[in-house]
């Protein structure tokens, strides 16, 4: 393969991985701190994308839509935490799986009632709507690069909060239990609600950013959910750093799998997961 195109494929893989990280990080955070496995994570990603679609139609600009959409997503996450998820912290994983499975059905079908089942495109803001020519034939859309930059910035912000603040370190160490958190002067119920809202916010934000790239269609949440699981499992549950590396690895494996092993592209991704698990059953940076 031509080295230029190899480099472009590398870029494709990294870009794909960064967006995946954004979505998977919310999943791993919610599990890492609250011990809740949230199957409905992909559904919130889908809601984010649909919200971006409707709000862009209303305001005429994706940026405005995202600025409006984020508080909405956080509020939605907060409401879901208070109504459904807070009953789950002390429950078995099985019950979490079931409840969130039920939520997928409800959210997805409500989407059908509210938005219908048509696919929709979401326009890129005008000032980002151009491409950089890379070769004679191929250009790279600037919006994709912008999304990568935003994902990197968020990853940096997360690394700072988790690595440099006292609360963050406790969260990272998996010690955010009632007593230690109370010692920092924080109410655990509030903390959980805020963190859960943040996790949902990340999923929905991922959906909003992805809306112009992926377009908006029913069933987009499921695909993302399962691949996010693979990311979280490879990275180690609760580890944001692990999710980051795993997402990049998945992005690259997926891209080069399509290039070199087209028949088995999707099997290769799961193969990577199996290999990592044989080597480290708790994932790259998992505890226990």
């Amino acid at each position, binding site marked *: *393969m*031509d080295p230029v*195109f190899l480099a*472009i*494929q590398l870029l*494709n*893989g990294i*870009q*794909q991985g960064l967006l995946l990280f954004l979505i998977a990080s919310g999943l791993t955070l919610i599990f890492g701190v609250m011990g809740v496995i949230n199957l409905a994570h992909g559904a919130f990603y889908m809601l984010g994308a649909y919200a971006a679609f409707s709000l862009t139609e209303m305001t005429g600009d994706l940026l405005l839509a995202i600025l409006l959409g984020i508080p909405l997503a956080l509020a939605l996450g907060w409401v879901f935490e208070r109504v459904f998820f807070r009953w789950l912290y002390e429950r078995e994983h099985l019950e979490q799986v079931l409840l969130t499975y039920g939520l997928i059905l409800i959210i997805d*079908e409500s989407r*059908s009632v509210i938005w*219908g*089942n*048509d*696919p*929709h*495109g979401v*326009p890129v803001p005008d000032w980002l709507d151009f*491409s950089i*020519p890379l*070769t*004679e*034939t*191929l*250009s*790279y*859309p600037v*919006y*994709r690069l912008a999304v990568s930059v935003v994902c990197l910035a968020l990853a940096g912000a997360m690394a700072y909060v988790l690595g440099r603040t006292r609360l963050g370190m406790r969260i990272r160490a998996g010690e955010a239990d009632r007593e230690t958190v109370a010692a920092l002067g924080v109410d655990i119920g509030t903390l959980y609600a805020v963190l859960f809202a943040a996790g949902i916010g990340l999923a929905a934000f991922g959906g909003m950013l992805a809306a*112009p*790239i*992926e*377009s*908006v*269609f*029913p*069933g*987009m949440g499921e*695909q993302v959910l399962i691949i996010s699981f693979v990311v979280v499992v490879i990275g180690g549950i609760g580890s944001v750093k692990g999710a980051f590396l795993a997402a990049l690895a998945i992005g690259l494996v*997926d*891209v*080069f799998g*399509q*290039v070199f092993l*087209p*028949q088995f*592209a*999707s099997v290769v991704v799961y193969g990577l997961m199996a290999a990592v698990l044989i080597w480290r059953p708790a994932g790259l940076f998992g505890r226990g």
Partner: protein
Amino acid sequence: MNGITRRGVLKGMGAAGAVAAASTLPAPYVRAATPIKAGILLPYSGTYSRLGEAITNGFMLNLGKSGDMLGGRPVELVRLDSEAKPPLGPSNATKLINGEKVDVLVGPVHSGVAMGMAKIAREEEALTIIPNAGADQLTGVLCAPNIFRSSFSNWQASYPMGKVLADRGTKRVALIYWNYAAGKQAAQGFKDGFADGDGEIVTEIGVPFPEVEFQAALTQVAEVNPDAVYVFFSGGGAVKFVKDWAAAGLKDKIALHGPGFLTEGVTDAQGEAAEGIETAMHYADTLDNPENKAFRAAYADRFGKNPDVFAVQGYDAGALLRVGVEAVQGDMDARGDLYAALSAADFASPRGRFRLSAAHNPIQDFYLRQVENGVNVVKGIAVAQLADPAKGCKLA
């Protein structure tokens, strides 16, 4: 979904009239009081529900032409959500055929569901009209006297564009498709059409279904730099591919083609990116024939929106049923005559002339279309009166 809520909605005023007239009419008409039950197995939830709705509307529109009566009997619809889930195909078909005892089965959209449904329809020998699912086998190795299709086969939908490019003398073509059964059949159809020329297929890229991340595939295509690319994606995937294609700067450098589904019903979502794309299909909104004009006006009038190809396929499923039922004067038990009449159907559809091959797949014109200002404009006939080769069908 105006107008359909429960079964039996079609039992209208016509039914009452028919009952009054029954006693004075010849034998077959004595059944007039009992409705013909049509089981509609279509997706009403999930990704394909838009198609399910359009097909149902088209079907009802056709029946409405005769006051919801066929062959002197009222028609009753029994709708069942197929969910587009193949494992449910057989059980849903059983429910309609054996549970509801329908006289005719109409459905489905999804090829996998169709395969399961066809299995039961063959076993139970139930009259079945497929208004969309394009799996080649349904009118190929699995063809049956009681199974008819009012839409297309996957092979048939992709052959014409291959032929057009071959005739134009296009030299180097790349294929990109979802790597699943329908995608592969489409690729085969294109190759068969393209084989008439002296061009070559320079690369074939299968994207895992239903993944919509195309950047890797686009980069591969750019590296190969062919004269034209033929793609098979539909729905959300079609929207996304066309937009990505434009964003990658390939739009004005490499010609993009596909079966009609690439730009059917999704040009609004694709916007500017779809402009100029050439596709071939057995229908186009702008077809200039009286049937199409009447159909579009009536559809818009009744359902408050514009019809698409799926509505046409539903409409023609109704037309096909009409031909059969009228030939046997409502006697649905006269299987031999019923099937013979259906097989011989030859009528003017909004898509043009409609008749069936020996394998019960439509023989139809395929139109070359190009997107102009968001509309698929007819540029001519790509291949006239094309029939599916019906590989392995013993009816042929």
